[in-house]
């Protein structure tokens, strides 16, 4: 058993009760420490795939399997392990914070999950304080989540997941309903969590942020993996991506138009243009 493995998706097919085939024989190996972005249009299967990772959805084909490796060298099979047992190992954060907040106090909300996995008392209080600091909600222990802003509630949902210290964190659309600064802040929180050795998987349609934060991009199309690799190579495979209608970041598209290899950030673009056309005095 490879201890560098975090999650293995093996030959998974998923057909919904109404007949839609959301996934078709998808296999994917997710390694520990990756910051993986699942991209694709609605209906591509990215959310369906993400929901298989902790067993919220199970493969509808007999030979499909999803296995999660725990830090103590155990393996959890999503077919045989009940959903609630994944909590200490893989946490899934839903897109809408209002569908996963149960308590009217911030600290109580974090404590709820901790209690479920057997972390109580002093250790729980310590983790709560530490986690709130990490996500930027320091000092708000006694606040009522339902009176907080959307951005704060989103951060709270992520805090509730991070407090469980799962080795794998899955976040569905971390930046929905946020302003630019908040969105960036949340991705920074996730990056810091990833830097501590944890695997972070996000579903996102903000390609600029994906370009900046992800170490690996998996593009889905019609239930299958279309492209899989680091952001630069995935965003560079234009023909493949054309199918998906994914809107690449502005600088990437600009670069592709004028013949540069995939540019991921503004500064890369600037450097490239300067290198190509040189500097002329007289710029304003």
């Amino acid at each position, binding site marked *: 058993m490879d201890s560098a493995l975090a999650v293995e998706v093996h030959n998974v097919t998923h057909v919904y009760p109404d007949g839609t085939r959301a996934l078709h024989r998808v296999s994917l190996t997710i390694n520990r420490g990756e910051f993986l972005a699942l991209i694709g*249009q609605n209906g591509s299967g990215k959310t369906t795939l993400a929901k298989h990772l902790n067993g919220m959805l199970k493969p509808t084909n007999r030979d499909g399997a999803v296995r999660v490796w725990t830090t103590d060298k155990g393996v959890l099979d999503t077919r045989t392990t009940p959903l609630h047992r994944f909590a200490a190992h893989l946490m899934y954060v839903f897109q809408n914070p209002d569908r996963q907040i149960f308590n009217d106090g911030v600290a109580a909300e974090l404590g709820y999950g901790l209690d479920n996995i057997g972390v109580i008392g002093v250790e729980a209080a310590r983790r709560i304080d530490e986690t709130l600091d990490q996500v930027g909600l320091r000092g708000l222990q006694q606040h009522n989540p339902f009176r907080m802003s959307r951005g704060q509630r989103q951060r709270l949902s992520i805090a509730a997941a991070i407090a469980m210290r799962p080795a794998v964190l899955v976040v569905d659309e971390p930046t*929905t309903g946020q302003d*630019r600064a908040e969105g960036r802040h949340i991705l920074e929180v996730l990056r810091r969590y990833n830097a501590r050795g944890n695997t972070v998987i996000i579903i996102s349609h903000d390609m*600029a942020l994906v370009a900046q934060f992800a170490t690996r991009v998996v593009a889905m199309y019609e239930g299958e993996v279309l492209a899989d690799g680091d952001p630069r190579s995935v965003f560079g495979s234009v023909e493949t991506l054309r199918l998906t209608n994914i809107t690449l970041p*502005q600088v990437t598209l600009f670069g592709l138009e004028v013949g540069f290899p995939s540019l991921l950030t*503004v500064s890369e673009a600037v450097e490239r*243009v300067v290198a190509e*056309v040189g500097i002329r005095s007289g*710029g*304003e």
Partner: protein
Amino acid sequence: MTLEQAPSSTAWLDPDTVEPILRAENFSFTYDAARAPVLVDIDLSVQRGEFLGIVGPTGAGKSTLLQCLCGVIPFYTPGTRTGAVFIKGRDLADYRGLADITNTVSLVLQDPECQLFNLHVRDELAWGLENRGVAVPEILAAMQHAADAFGIGHLLDRNTSTLSGGEKQRVVVASVFALRPEIVLLDEPTSELDPVGTQMVFEAAGLLAAEGITVVMVEHKVEELVRYAHRLAVMEAGRITALGPVRDVLRGDMTARLTAYRPHVFQMGLDLRARGVAVDAVPLSIEEAVGMYRRLQSVAIHG
């Protein structure tokens, strides 16, 4: 409507020539039971037919401003107002109630789920007109026009719950349009939507503008917003800190937090200029960026 189609003549931007359709003068607002004002000294004039974009961080007061411009504040939500808001030259306070104002100014909210009240799209389009007691033949004509204008004819008999987020918001905009408002305010309508839905809504806003309706749109997705807006306003902490043509505002001196509101190609253009590259017009879109680069290339080649 793309930037190329936006009116190049700025005569109508001159407040002295034409009475603005919407105006806030020295306007401040504090919610009841709040300690500090959420809007401070707002001076804003919106001309008929313009597309004004408003950007800014959460909590800046953007939603509150929109609500003050359409009468939700004070007729629906109480608070202390100082200064005045004028709709077509008439003081907001002189209106009798929200119902009278919605004939002229309408507001589209963030969550499409809360703005669809009927089971079928067809009934939704008609609902507003039914409320007003408009005669049935007129309602049917208005519905047809709205469905055609917004390309939702194929959705008419669909159940509203089964629509995608983008489709829902598009139906909302079309339903609001059916009421023939002169001004439509949109409060982060693409906030919950995916890129496809976002496109649908921005297009819908563009269609409103094409019909001559004055549009004021609060949004975070600047890359899209600048394709449609003539002018941009920046709000921070209850004040308007910048207001003017899109390019001017984006070039202006913004705090570090707000540079996130520059489209990436625009930032690239500014950075290139700062490095001494002779950028003539800072690009607002990818097409403009490509054009800029090609011009730089030819200058570099031919000297």
